[in-house]
């Protein structure tokens, strides 16, 4: 027995079965055990949140110590400095993200960059619509038709001129989206359940990493 693989697989199975048992059996002992597992899971998730930062230190620390031409190592310095400053400010006061300084920094740095980066895809959508969105064949035309009709329905000017555009948009979201996405959702559900079962019984072991 390879205890370094088999015991984790057993843990996955046991914990998963208890979670499923809580839902399907209603046995109080199982529910009580699952409550403990839930609470433990929340604390563990808290520990897991730091993994990304540790990896960043490793990767960018190596880049800084190598200082190779063309690797933007100076920006790695920026990254680690910002990381360290924010962690210190967040933890030192004991107020975590509720601290005044942390909040100030969040509203000045994180919020504007995050919301801008998330939304600047709008430019690429417009550019993509200009360069690439073509009704080249029947399949592309189908996608094109509903995309255009929904954009027209979503643009307040057109329904203001003719309300039928909005009703057309609502209708597309009715039977067409409902029907197709119901099929997609069933497919997703089956796929997720099959993958979950394979994970629990040890057929999917990717999460264990390398040997």
């Amino acid at each position, binding site marked *: 027995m390879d205890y370094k693989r088999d015991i*984790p697989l057993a843990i996955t199975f046991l914990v998963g079965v208890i979670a499923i048992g809580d839902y399907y059996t209603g046995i109080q002992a199982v529910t009580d055990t699952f409550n403990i597992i839930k609470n*433990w899971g929340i604390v563990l998730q808290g520990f897991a949140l730091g993994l990304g930062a540790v990896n960043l230190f490793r990767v960018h620390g190596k880049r800084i110590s190598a200082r190779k031409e063309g690797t933007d190592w100076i920006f790695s310095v920026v990254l680690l400095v910002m990381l360290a400053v924010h962690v210190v400010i967040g933890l030192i006061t004991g107020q975590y993200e509720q601290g005044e300084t942390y909040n100030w920094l969040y509203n000045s740095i994180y919020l504007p960059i995050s919301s801008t980066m998330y*939304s600047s895809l709008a430019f690429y959508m417009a550019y993509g619509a200009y360069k690439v969105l073509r009704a080249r064949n029947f*399949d592309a035309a189908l996608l094109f*038709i509903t995309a255009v009709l929904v954009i027209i329905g979503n643009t307040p000017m057109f329904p203001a001129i003719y309300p039928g555009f909005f009703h057309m948009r609502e*209708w597309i979201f009715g039977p067409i989206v*409902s*029907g197709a996405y119901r099929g997609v959702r069933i497919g997703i559900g089956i796929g997720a359940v099959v993958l979950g079962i394979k994970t629990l019984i040890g057929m999917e072991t990717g999460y264990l990493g390398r040997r």
Partner: protein
Amino acid sequence: MVTMDPQIWLAAFFTIAATSYAFRDNAVFKFAEYTFIGVAAAHQIVMGVKNIRDYGWTKIMEGQIIYVVVFVLGIMLYARFHRDYYWMYRFPIAFLVGNGVGISIRAAIHSDFIVQVSETARTPLIAGDAMGTINAIITFVGAVTAIFHFIFTQEKLHVGAVGWIPKIGRWMMLLAFGASFGNTVMSRFGMYQGRVVFLLREWLQVI
């Protein structure tokens, strides 16, 4: 009158820096990008520590010493960065994966499969009016043919006369994806307009 608030100026700088990539890659954008990654990771650490304190440490302080085991498991997560002790990481991750998988698949069977199939089966195809009937038929056909499209293990389903069923499913999904694209355009522009309104209202104070 442009604001004198340094917080707004800093936010405006980073907004413009992040937008600049749309025009071309540049050092100012890279500065904003790397800053963001660092700050995002820092925020995760801060919230992680707070989470551990609120849901782990307080339990130990209340006398539930068993939570020390959870702390040990949590620290073992960081063994993944060690070449020799990497395997220790598997124990807590197995716990998290088992928990996550168990919690989600137990309900996915119900919500994503049973309820969806039963709704498809029990919705009458003949409604009170012509439009309702057409809508019900389109919904039913869309759902059933889309499911058929995903049956890849039976090649015979995709050829011949029967092959029309998954083909219609693909067409229905393309129509639906077009609607999704249309909504995505609105979504992205809706997000970006918030930043522009911020620049005009709070930074430049012209609206």
